[in-house]
């Protein structure tokens, strides 16, 4: 309960002002495609040079919290995930906005982000020492199996065909092998100098999601512009609160899955949203509604990707090991003020550590208030004429992909991938599994190679990857996930009507 003693520090006028700036700025930056949480926090570090340690950390903590939630805005309204964490949000969120429920989708997303986020930060506050040991338990073999578990999700991710989902995933896996391989020191598939750095996830994400939309809007021409949505339904906040409360299963599942995945160094929050989405779909009574604008998936995904924020800092604050790229940037922010995180951080600099954590806690709530406030307004974006929309999205896409690494190469890659995706979508393939392949490929590959290098030196590869309680537990989860997909595919094929209506209870 020590943190309550420092709660007052967050509310001094100057600190609270910083917290507001960080939260509001983070929300806007997070909503801009290409400006991921890592990027935003890195951009803010120079501003903290002139601030005191606590003040600087309040700014960084608030910005980190709200950029993660801000990414949902562009995911819902434009179908462009602000960061990899928001991929799952597009699946149902964008459909909801298309159906005129944009305001509701945004409200639900901010409410579940705040609920998940507060859960994650409370875990960080109360269970840090226990969680630290858990974070270290995951070695290369375990992270390899986790990545494989993520890959098994690919096939069932979208409502369409499992085979096409898997094929999209394979394309993503292949794309992820392009570039220099840091472990074996080889170059792979570099047939143009733009590819020497490999395909970066964020430009790919923007291209694959945004460009097909832009092309299809332009392809339609003037003929039927403005026919899609005629009104944005107003939605009272109290309704949204009640809906989130009614979907408590999805909400709590998201918070738990997000916290667990966020804790593991190296996997980061990129897949928290997607895993939670998939799990909530599997336990839901209304599976068939997923992907059509159903709120359950949105709630699970958003509560998961904000729940990941708190636990992702556990390895940093206790072991001085940044578990995610954003945590690495935050480490820089701590070091610049002469604060070395480690097991004694809370004894040596309690004011700094607790104020930082408190600022994330209060930031979650502030973020939710700001978010709800702008939701109704932001939702009106969908009313813009499609041709203007397409131009604006194209502009954002180019800006977003350039700004990640200041490189035109990324813009070319983004445009190429996006154009290819337009044609793939015509044949029923979808972007989400492809991006998931792109994200999981390197994690699976690098951990497999590292694991086998260690295994070859010490024991055998088979023993290293296939024995041990944690390995077996993960392998059985992979098996269950696979069997489940096969089973539901067969059930669907045999009796589409039954699976469509029969299983859904009133």
């Amino acid at each position, binding site marked *: 309960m020590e943190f309550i003693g420092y709660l007052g520090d967050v509310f001094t006028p100057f600190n609270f002002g910083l917290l507001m700036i960080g939260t509001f700025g983070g929300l806007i930056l997070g909503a801009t495609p290409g400006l991921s949480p890592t990027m935003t926090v890195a951009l803010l570090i120079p501003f903290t040079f002139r601030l005191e340690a606590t003040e600087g950390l309040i700014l960084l903590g608030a910005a980190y919290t709200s950029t993660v939630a801000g990414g949902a805005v562009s995911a819902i309204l434009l179908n462009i995930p602000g960061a990899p964490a928001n991929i799952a949000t597009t699946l149902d969120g964008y459909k909801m906005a298309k159906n005129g429920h944009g305001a509701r989708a945004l409200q639900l997303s901010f409410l579940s982000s705040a609920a998940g986020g507060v859960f994650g930060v409370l875990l960080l506050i109360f269970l840090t020492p226990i969680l630290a040991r858990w974070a*270290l338990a995951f070695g290369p073999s375990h992270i390899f199996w986790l990545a494989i578990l993520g890959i098994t999700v690919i096939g069932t991710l979208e409502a369409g065909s499992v085979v096409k989902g898997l094929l999209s995933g394979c394309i993503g896996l292949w794309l992820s092998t392009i570039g220099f391989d840091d472990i074996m020191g080889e170059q792979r598939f570099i047939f143009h100098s733009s590819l020497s750095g490999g395909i970066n996830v964020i430009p790919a994400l923007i291209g694959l999601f945004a460009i097909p939309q832009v092309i299809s809007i332009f392809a339609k021409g003037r003929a039927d512009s403005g026919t899609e949505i005629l009104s944005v339904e107003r939605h009272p906040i109290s309704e949204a609160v009640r809906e989130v409360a009614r979907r408590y299963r999805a909400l709590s599942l998201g918070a738990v899955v997000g916290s667990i995945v966020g804790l593991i160094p190296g996997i980061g929050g990129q897949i928290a949203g997607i895993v939670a989405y998939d799990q909530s779909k599997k336990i839901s009574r209304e599976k068939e509604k997923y992907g059509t604008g159903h709120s359950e998936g949105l709630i699970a995904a958003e509560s998961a990707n904000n729940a990941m924020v708190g636990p992702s800092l556990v390895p940093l604050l206790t072991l001085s090991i940044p578990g995610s790229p954003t945590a690495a940037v935050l480490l820089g922010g701590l070091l610049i003020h002469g604060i070395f995180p480690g097991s*004694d951080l809370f004894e040596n600099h309690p004011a700094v550590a607790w104020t930082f954590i408190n600022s994330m806690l209060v930031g979650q709530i502030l973020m939710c208030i700001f978010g709800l406030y702008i939701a109704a307004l932001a939702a009106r974006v969908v009313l813009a004429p499609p041709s203007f929309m397409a131009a604006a999205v194209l502009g954002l896409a180019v800006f977003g992909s350039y700004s990640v690494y200041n490189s035109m190469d990324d813009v070319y890659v983004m445009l190429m991938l996006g154009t290819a995706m337009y044609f793939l979508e015509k044949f029923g393939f979808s972007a989400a599994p492809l991006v998931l392949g792109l994200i999981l490929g390197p994690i699976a590959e690098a951990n497999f190679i590292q694991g086998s290098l260690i295994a070859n030196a010490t024991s055998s590869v088979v023993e290293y990857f296939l024995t041990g309680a944690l390995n077996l537990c993960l392998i059985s989860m992979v098996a269950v996930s696979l069997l489940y997909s096969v089973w539901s595919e067969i059930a669907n094929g045999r009796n589409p009507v039954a699976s469509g209506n029969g299983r859904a209870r009133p």
Partner: protein
Amino acid sequence: MKKLLAAAAIALTSLAGAAVADGHENYPERPILLMISYGAGGATDFQARIVTMTAGNEDALGMPIAIINKPGAGGRKGWNWFATEADNDGYTLGAYNIPHFIAQSIEGGVDYSADSFEPIANWGADPAVFVVAADSAFNSMNDVIAYATENPGKLTFSGAGLFVGHHIAALQLENAAGVKLAYIPSNKGGAAAMKSVIAGEVLGGVNNLSDAYRAREAGNVKILGVFDNERNDFLPDVPTMKEQGYDIDNSSVNFRGVMVPKGTPQPIIDKLAEIVPAMFENKRVLGKMNAGGSPMHIMTRDEVLEMWKAREATLEKLLAGL
């Protein structure tokens, strides 16, 4: 075409130079870019932002330096860009990491070598150290090597990737001790390599002195030796490899500094070479660097030129066996 343009540019500059003394006395007249070939928030980026924060002062360059990150392929992407596309008018500087870029140019497949760049000044030197988990049975490098001699190829130890300082240190250790070791490179940098040591996935690791120092303060690791010519001020109690009987010099020390592309006008290089090292000496810079646990090592242009040459020669020998 590019060459033609460059030639035309050189012709133009020399023409202008003939007209107005040398035309560079007002340099710099606008803000300057500093290209970092690693991501925002990494050690190189972090340190570069600190050492350049006083550039706008009147007694320094009088113009701010803006950082631009071009990460990818272990730094290759940024340095390729710097060697082939960056303007050589003095307004685009780059940060170098030694031994990384020299080792990569020896390995091949890149558009640069030590001759593509002109060093300006060095700001930091981060030696590699050998770490083991706090509960490890190893208490000295001799314990480690004794284990490796009994179990050839079974001593697993981590480091941040290939053709970086850690990899060079690993090769030097293997050569000096005459045993076979199992170097496990990480593709996520030093932090991931450190995690694998603390979590006990590997028996030891080569890592940055600054990170290892922090990990030891936190009680997570023991530091058994420094891959440098002398002991380090941050770790006066840790012996060098040479003291423990392994003939290893400072070839793996990660030097960081500022350079410009080849072809930058000599007056500009001279001016930068005079001002930049003095800028690094600023009290605020030294204070922030020290607080961050980043060892400073300021070297002038002439010293860096010599260091690059020496490094190239040793690395060529060391990497020839790969």
